[in-house]
């Protein structure tokens, strides 16, 4: 079975593959106790869950916060901090009934005032919340009693509830705690933030009053070891219980070793190659298609990701209802690409393109170098410019000063976030200056279509439209990886259906 077929048919949530033998089998019941030492691949930054935009910090915060609702493994929205919720028929009013007896780490009880405070904080542009957009249509938030929250929207926003299921937009913090969240995050999650020695380590301890039952671990120490070789050495010497992000080229060293277990989950994110739609040559769809034809996606994935991923023409979450499995990537055809370029008026050597890539993702640099050869073979005069993360953000994301680039995004199962933000002409993430009235109309229609099946059908059309017109070139989904000692149990629970990854609530240490 080809990977692509697997994607289309798998009914599992993404997929989590655990290999190597956890110690296990012998220890049947989870035991409490012990501190897990985690070799974390990145440095945590601003610890405010509403403000932080980095995956690394989010990974840690998943253990500290809880969202108002969440999702089950079939991606249906289900209760969490709210024990029930309802939506009015016109799609404008949402009522949440909060669970009683939920405590925050500061000892206070969860009330409707905390929810109102959290949502209003995100909606205030001065907060700089990354999920600001989710709350844009909110007209009022009422709290008739301590346990009830009524959110009224000024216009229908079909994805509203699904977005609240992410432990980001939907994370509830104690009323008035906004100013201290960045230094000392406080929430209702299974672990309490103890301290951070910036750039070295973060310590969390178990929250005994967690509403869903206390965690097994006494605590977690996350040691921030950015150098992959050292992280791997720490695992091998036993200094670390587990590491995330195993260096791709070293995967085989521990995969076949029975002293360790590895966990791969799919998908971590998707990657795509971008055109600046304001750059004259890329206004011509034939030129964009020609570039698509130059890329052999499977070979590129093997070369840049060492096979740790799966190619896909759709960026939708692979098991979600919006995933268009009928869509296929164009196979590589350099001759056809040359012909298309010639049709568009570019003979060999006529087209000069600079490809900007960020060193923040080393595999992007590798990808660009591999693609360079193909682009040159098709007669494109291409050069690569490597940028630091902040330079990439400023030149490409904010100033939109680029010709070609590539980037990755989380694949969230809620398609509006993905498609509207990235491909609508006014979308918050539309750094490629895509401006297509037909596409805009489809995306706007999806947003006000309350019927779920009809809405998903629109998103499938959107994917086809993006691929047919080569607005961007979607490459693949990338795996997330964890390597651990065999006494770390329950690792298959660390990736949650609502997209939060590395949640240690159900993880335990066998002695």
């Amino acid at each position: 079975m080809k990977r692509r077929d697997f994607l289309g048919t798998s009914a599992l949530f993404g997929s989590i593959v655990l290999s190597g033998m956890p110690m296990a089998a012998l220890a049947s019941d989870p035991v409490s106790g012990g501190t897990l030492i985690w070799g974390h691949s990145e440095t945590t930054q601003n610890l405010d869950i509403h403000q932080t935009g980095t995956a690394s910090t989010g990974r840690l915060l998943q253990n500290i916060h809880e969202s108002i609702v969440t999702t089950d493994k079939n991606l249906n929205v289900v209760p969490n901090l709210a024990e029930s919720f309802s939506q009015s028929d016109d799609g404008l009013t949402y009522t949440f009934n909060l669970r009683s007896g939920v405590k925050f780490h500061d000892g206070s009880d969860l009330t409707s005032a905390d929810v109102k405070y959290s949502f209003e904080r995100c909606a205030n542009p001065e907060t700089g919340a990354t999920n600001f957009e989710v709350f844009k249509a909110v007209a009022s938030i009422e709290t008739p009693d301590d346990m009830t929250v009524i959110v009224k929207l000024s216009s229908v926003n079909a994805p509203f509830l699904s977005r609240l299921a992410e432990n980001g937009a939907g994370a509830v913090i104690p009323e008035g705690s906004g100013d201290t969240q960045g230094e000392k995050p406080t929430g209702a999650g299974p672990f309490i933030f103890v301290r951070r020695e910036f750039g070295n380590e973060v310590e969390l301890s178990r929250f005994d009053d967690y509403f869903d039952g206390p965690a097994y671990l006494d605590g977690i120490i996350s040691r921030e070891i950015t150098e992959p070789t050292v992280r791997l050495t720490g695992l091998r010497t036993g200094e670390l219980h587990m590491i995330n992000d195993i260096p791709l080229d070293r995967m085989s060293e521990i995969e076949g070793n029975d002293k360790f277990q590895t966990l791969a989950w799919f998908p971590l994110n998707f990657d795509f190659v971008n055109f600046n739609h304001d750059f004259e040559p890329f206004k011509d769809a034939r030129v964009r298609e020609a570039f698509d034809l130059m890329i052999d996606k499977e070979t590129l994935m093997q070369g840049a990701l060492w096979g740790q991923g799966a190619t896909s023409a759709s960026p939708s979450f692979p098991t979600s209802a919006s995933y268009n499995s009928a869509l296929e990537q164009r196979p590589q055809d350099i001759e056809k690409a040359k012909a298309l370029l010639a049709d568009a008026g570019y003979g060999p050597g006529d087209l000069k393109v600079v490809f900007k890539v960020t060193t923040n993702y080393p595999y992007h640099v590798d990808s660009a170098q591999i693609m360079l050869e193909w682009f040159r073979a098709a007669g494109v005069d291409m050069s690569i410019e490597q940028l630091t993360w902040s330079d990439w953000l400023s030149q490409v994301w904010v100033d939109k000063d680029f010709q070609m680039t590539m980037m990755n995004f989380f694949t969230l199962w809620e398609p509006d976030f993905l498609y509207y933000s990235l491909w609508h002409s006014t979308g918050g993430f539309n750094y490629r200056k895509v401006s297509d009235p037909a596409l805009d109309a489809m995306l706007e229609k999806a947003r006000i279509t309350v019927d779920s099946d009809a809405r998903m059908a629109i998103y499938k059309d959107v994917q086809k439209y993006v691929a047919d017109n080569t607005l961007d070139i979607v490459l693949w989904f990338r795996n997330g990886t964890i390597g651990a000692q065999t006494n770390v149990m329950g690792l298959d629970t660390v990736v949650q259906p609502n997209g939060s990854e590395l949640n240690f609530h159900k993880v335990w240490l066998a002695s």
Partner: protein
Amino acid sequence: MSYILNRLLSVALTLALISMITFVVTNILPGDVAMVIMGTQSNPEALAGLRENLGLNDPLIMQYGRWVGGMLTGDWGKSLVFKEAIGPLIAQKFVASGLIVVMSMTIALVCAIPLGVWAAVHQNKWQDNAASTTSLLGVSLPDFFWGIMLILLFARYLEWFPSSGFVHPADDFLGAVRHAFLPSLALGLGLMAHLTRMTRSTMTGILNQEFVRVARAKGLSERTVVWRYSLANAIGPVITVAGLQVGYLFGSIIVVESLFNFTGMGWLTYQALLNRDIPLIQSTVFVIAAVVMLTNLLVDLLYVVIDPRIRLN
């Protein structure tokens, strides 16, 4: 005394100038901290709100004034990206860098001086060649190479030292030394090579001088001639170079710091720059510049102690 006061005054003026230049240059760089905080989750409206909130829209002179005012009153402010109070953050990284600099310098000096002297005494013999080869090897291989080799040998195979991490000396002194040992050794090897060559060349010059011949003619033992009289004359330039290295090591050993997850001032400065975190850039550059200048002052004062011929004025 007035010499020291003069020097301190010039240090203060230089620091003020450096802080102004740093501020202007970091503001010229494209991009800003709000953009980095939100990353690829940002949208124009929220980005504008965050900029306002962080005070990035205020005139530059006001932003600079805020920083100077804070420094003078002892409130170094907060990092914009990491939300940590800058004072304690720098204090912690200062200890990490200090530990690694002191230990690597000690390792380097303890090995380099005897090796250099030994090579000079046996000039052009096999001992000299051996010392030269060793130091050439140390100089030409970069510290990250030594770092990875040391991790593999001492942490992975022998398991004598931990592969990474920092322990505060106040919490556990022995643990701190154990954790700092491999990074210090990785740095110390390169430094040692440098200082060995330095010692050898100055010693060679001294050993050919007339007073050495006189001392030998007087029948003083070879040990006294070499270690007491010659070395005392040769050590000055070595100390100068070592002193300059201290300042350099303090602020720019990012590679070794990140390799061993032993993050200090160099790493912190690099993070501040990468993230355009202006208050943090200002403060780290300021502290590093101060350390460099004060070490140089200290080296000059040390000269007087070592070489009684020198007088300060």
